[in-house]
């Protein structure tokens, strides 16, 4: 049997060797590690940016002001303006909305499809489970970006298309992880007891398996969120994501490229935003994993 492809080290180890079902180590929480804290802070920062933007932004991010184009950062424009005179800071704030929105919907779609599929694959007969796994593996040949480009070719580029495409591309990650976790849960004694007592599989799935894979879902959600942010940024960069004039970090980056020789800072700010956001979600995912169930992966 070939070694199972590892997910990101510690991103939901396939076939982990927990002695007891995942997510059951509730009594053994440790103090939150630095990854968790920093990750959470960054994510909260991004969320704050988005929320604030609903209420107030220094300027209207879509407001074109040719008189002050390419202004350097100053008291008036905290991060300066772009080639159209739009305030960079405001664009970043509103762009955070897009980033989060796409991430939430994409991960939501992936989880809503992937979790039940994963549980199904674990609880179904060998043959059906295998077929299901092969099917999702096939999806792995279509990374998020490619799928999104394909979707955009057919349906035109938009935020909705991006979200759905990224979501579908993220399904395999959830399916594999949840299936692995569900298999472990099903080996436990209390599930055995439930089955012996004649509980219907659906009931077992919902009452026993689902709650116990919860922590797996949370961790994977965080990691997949990071990937979604990256994919959305790439899409916007290519012109397939959120169409103008709605600000998006990826498109900001793309627009900055022409001005690279005169105003490289225009690339720095959205770039930094993207990188920091992705970093934040990754750290959060890692930190959550360590915190919720140290046995998901050996503590290194």
């Amino acid at each position, binding site marked *: 049997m070939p070694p199972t492809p590892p997910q990101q080290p510690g991103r939901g180890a396939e076939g982990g060797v927990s002695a007891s079902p995942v997510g059951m180590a509730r009594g053994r929480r440790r103090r939150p590690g630095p990854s968790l804290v920093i990750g959470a802070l960054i994510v909260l920062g991004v969320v704050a940016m988005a929320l604030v933007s609903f209420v107030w932004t220094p300027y209207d991010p879509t407001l074109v002001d040719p008189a002050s184009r390419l202004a350097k950062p100053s008291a008036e424009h905290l991060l300066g303006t772009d080639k159209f005179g739009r305030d960079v800071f405001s664009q970043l704030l509103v762009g955070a909305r897009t980033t989060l929105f796409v991430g939430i919907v994409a991960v939501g779609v992936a989880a809503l499809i992937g979790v039940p599929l994963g549980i199904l694959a674990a609880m179904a007969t060998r043959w059906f489970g295998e077929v299901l796994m092969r099917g999702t593996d096939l999806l792995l*040949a279509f990374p998020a970006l490619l799928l999104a480009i394909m979707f*955009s*070719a057919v349906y035109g580029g938009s935020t909705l298309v991006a979200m759905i495409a990224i979501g579908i591309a993220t399904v395999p990650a959830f399916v594999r992880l949840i299936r692995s976790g569900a298999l472990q849960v099903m080996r436990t004694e209390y599930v055995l007891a439930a089955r012996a007592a004649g509980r219907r599989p659906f009931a077992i799935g919902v009452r026993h398996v689902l709650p116990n894979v919860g922590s797996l879902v949370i961790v994977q959600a965080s990691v997949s969120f*990071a990937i979604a942010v990256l994919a959305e940024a790439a899409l916007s960069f290519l012109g397939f994501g959120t169409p103008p004039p709605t600000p998006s970090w990826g498109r900001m980056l793309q627009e900055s490229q022409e001005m690279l020789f005169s105003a490289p800072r225009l690339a720095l700010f959205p770039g930094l935003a993207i990188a920091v956001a*992705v970093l934040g979600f990754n750290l959060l995912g890692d930190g959550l994993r360590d915190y919720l169930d140290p046995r998901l992966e050996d503590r290194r």
Partner: protein
Amino acid sequence: MLLRILQRTGVLLASLLASSVLVFAFMAVLPGDPARVALGVNASDEAVAELRTQFGLDRPLIEQYLSWVGGLLRFDLGESYVSRAAIGPQIADRLQVSLWLVVTAMVIALVVAVPFGTVMAVRHRHVSGLLLSALSQVGVAIPAFLAGILLITVFAVKLGWLPANGWTPPNQDPVQFVRQLILPALSLAIVQAAVLTRYVRSSVLDVQREDYIRTARAKGRSSMAALRHHGLRNAGVPVVTVLALQLATLLIGAVVVERVFVIPGLGSLLLDAVSNRDLIMVQDVVMILVIAVLFVNFLVDLLYVAIDPRLRAGAR
């Protein structure tokens, strides 16, 4: 072992078939008429109908699918709806370019990841290991196109050492070719290296705990030597797996990098086709990409058998 090869070949063929159906079905769902798109809104209905027949779009879907797959097997990818030029040669040209990019990036990533990952694993409790670990976390968060822009800013804009974009075939001007290859390959390589480093670290840490490493030390090898002689081959297996999985990401990442550096690779062909609604081109390019990924995975599976003797017949 033969059984294994046959089995993997079977899986490969089934996957190829299934993905071709997926890709075709996906494109077929498209609203709108490729012929009309090609001719423009004001074209006459007859002209459009004639073009449809030429493209074979009036045949039943099954027939279209079979004829497309048949063409793929004959390496005949048809003609672009937009330019009417043969698609096959275009893809072949562009593929070369993309391959240069991807392979170079992969090599750079490996060359960086293996030693750094090993050091991170061996020193995982020291400050140096933790610092490197933090660095790799940051590296993973930097998408290729961002890395590209940053590199351009530093090396092309500020320092002027390397060109900011463009592409020259190697046989035309080798020096310029290399100069134009460096930054794009590096952009792809940075995030790849970060990802691979983390896997190498994880894998080496796993191997370090293995009993046979202890046996090697009991023979008189130092920890590093034991790891080098006994660990690397075993640590290599998960890393190779990841390489294969990452290839899909890398190929797609190349799409964006090609846009940043204006490189005529497969990625830009795809993007242009999408913009032009040249759907047969999109279909073909996507299929080529998918075939490439599936094929690499297949090869890697076979590579396992070469690396790990336990996968050959007769393990106890």
